[in-house]
């Protein structure tokens, strides 16, 4: 019996992968196997969610070295008889996906936001043409590497039936030396987790106006975010607050978009929000078409009034 293997170096994303793996495994009568590399805590977490966990302990397998992780997972696939591997489509996972697919001779899709099993095919949705379209694609073949967008699926709940076994893998010495890892300090923004995002775009007149926008974000119980030019061209905000194709893809309950025109490279990062409010002085701005509530007005005035109204 073939199987499906999941791997992510991040505990939470690994639990999300279990959910997706469950969909596929159920349809095929397979079982879900999970590889954990040098991470005893994750073994426990995944086994608690009902996965058959294979614990790989080998200091030569560094998460920073996609090549070695790929070799380790290839060995795991062979020993565990798995033809489909699910990875998280964060930066580490996406880098690994291509490498692993090549090692396995597998087809590969990354940035998958939805999965549907259609007979023999696993239909995956992902953005295409820079986000202008959403493509439904599948891999025609047995060997598949699928990388799933973080937070697209709920983490798997606790369930019985889990187990933990050791798995030996051999990898060559790593050609990457990790010199330093600087974790983001906890005060930095985590816009992907925020229930509310207030997003500033190029309609914002000056950096000074950000204070009022941030205050609005706080009043709404959320975080301040921005479109790419505000971070990369104007440098008014750090890049970890950028929403869009090359920034974060967020699904808050509420997104308030201020002075955003609505280029697809941006909207692809926010179009899954539950409720979207757009404020833009240009009535023809595309953003009004993808908003639940839209105001054709000067954003500075609206921010002031909203701050007063919510005070």
């Amino acid at each position, binding site marked *: 019996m073939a199987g499906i293997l999941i791997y992510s170096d991040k505990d939470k994303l690994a639990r999300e992968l279990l959910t997706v793996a469950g969909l596929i495994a159920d349809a095929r009568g397979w079982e879900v196997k999970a590889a954990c590399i040098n991470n005893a805590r994750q073994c426990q977490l995944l086994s608690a969610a009902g996965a058959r966990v294979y614990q790989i302990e080998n200091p030569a397998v560094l998460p920073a070295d996609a090549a070695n992780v790929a070799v380790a997972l290839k060995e795991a696939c062979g020993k565990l008889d798995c033809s489909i591997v699910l990875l998280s489509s964060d930066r580490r996972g996406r880098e690994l996906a291509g490498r692993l697919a090549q090692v396995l001779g597998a087809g590969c899709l990354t940035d998958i936001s939805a999965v549907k099993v259609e007979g023999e095919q696993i239909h995956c949705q992902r953005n295409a043409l820079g986000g202008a379209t959403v493509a439904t694609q599948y891999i025609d073949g047995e060997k598949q590497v699928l990388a799933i967008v973080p937070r697209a699926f709920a983490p798997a709940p606790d369930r019985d039936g889990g187990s933990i076994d050791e798995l030996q893998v051999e990898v060559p010495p790593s050609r990457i030396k990790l010199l330093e890892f600087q974790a983001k300090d906890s005060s930095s923004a985590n816009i992907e987790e925020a229930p509310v995002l207030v997003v500033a775009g190029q309609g914002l007149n000056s950096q000074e106006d950000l204070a009022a926008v941030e205050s609005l974000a706080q009043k709404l119980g959320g975080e301040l975010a921005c479109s790419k030019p505000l971070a990369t061209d104007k440098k008014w905000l750090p890049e970890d607050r950028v929403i869009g194709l090359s920034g974060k893809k967020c699904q808050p309950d509420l997104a308030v978009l201020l002075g955003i025109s609505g280029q697809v490279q941006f909207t692809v990062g926010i179009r899954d929000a539950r409720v979207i409010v757009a404020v833009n*002085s*240009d*009535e*023809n701005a595309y953003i009004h078409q993808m908003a639940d509530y839209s105001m*054709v007005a000067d954003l500075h005035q609206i921010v002031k009034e909203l701050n007063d109204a919510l005070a």
Partner: protein
Amino acid sequence: MDFNLSKEQSLIQQMAREFAEKSIAPAAKQIDEESKIPEEILAGMAELDLFGIPFPEEYGGADGGYDGYVLAMEQIAKVSGGVAMTMAAHTLGLGAISAFGTEEQKKKYMIPGCKAKHIVSFAFTEPGTGSDPKQITTTAVKQGDFYILNGTKRFISNANYPGAMVVFARETESGEVTAFILDKWAEGYSISEPWEKIGMHGGQLLDVYMKDVKVPADNLLGKIGQGFPILLLGIALGKIGTSTAALGGTLAALEEASKYAREKTHRGQPIAKFQAIQLKIADLAIKYETARWLCYRLGCLANDIKDPGKFAAEAALVKAYCGDNVVDAARIAVDVHGSYGLMRDYTIERVYRDAIIGPEIEGVADMQKLIVASSILRSKG
């Protein structure tokens, strides 16, 4: 006939647009208010070869032809008429040296010119000449290996920058109008305060005073008495610049009016929904497209001038059209803005003031039309 840009042409256009939007546009209001172009903008333009586009590489140019020059200048002029005017006058001066200079003169003056270490001037107009070269009173007296120049030139672009100036004077021995290359800042060279003009601020016009300025005899441009053909070609080349500056202004008028029409609302509707506004936008587009293809064609013609007289008539036609056209376009765009269009906070206010310059410099529109008419009537006659 193929009206598509080549890949190179569209890259030149994109490059100039990117530079204009990133580096000039943010300073455009300041340039207008202070009548001065920041050093770093000139340096940035120099780095991109925008001061030597049509000239051969051996003289420091980019070998991009006048078609490349027109494409780049249009984008610069769209964001700042003053910067465009500086670029136009400079390129015209270099164009005269390129066409008539000796090998030594080209090496000496074009290389630093193309690299914008020098900003070049072209000085013909005098307080008493108007557009009639016969009235030139500046004199050049031969004295050994030098000519001694005396006289006053009026409304000279770029006279405030160091570099070469092509200057027209009456050589006293022959009594003929003759061109010289003069080093600005030579002893005896002085300038007035810049004229305070209505628009294109930053492109400064100054009066130039020459008192016993010693010009080496080697700096004679062309031959003694060759002043008229040099002037004819120089002014014709200059019209590529002034026409394209007007084209850029027309594009600015179209873009500003369209932007305003989409953003400004009346009774909850953007004014772009009203047919009265839509008709104006269409008129602006027509004005832009007609001027655009005239200028692009003129640029192509300038790459290979076989008959300077014929080219001068072509240039006069384009200049007559584009100069008046930009004024009409700016006026329509101001209309779209209503009263707001008169306010300094709105870009169109500056575009309008810049536009007025168009028909008046480098020969007024009526002069151009006379040149066009005479070329037609003469050839048929």
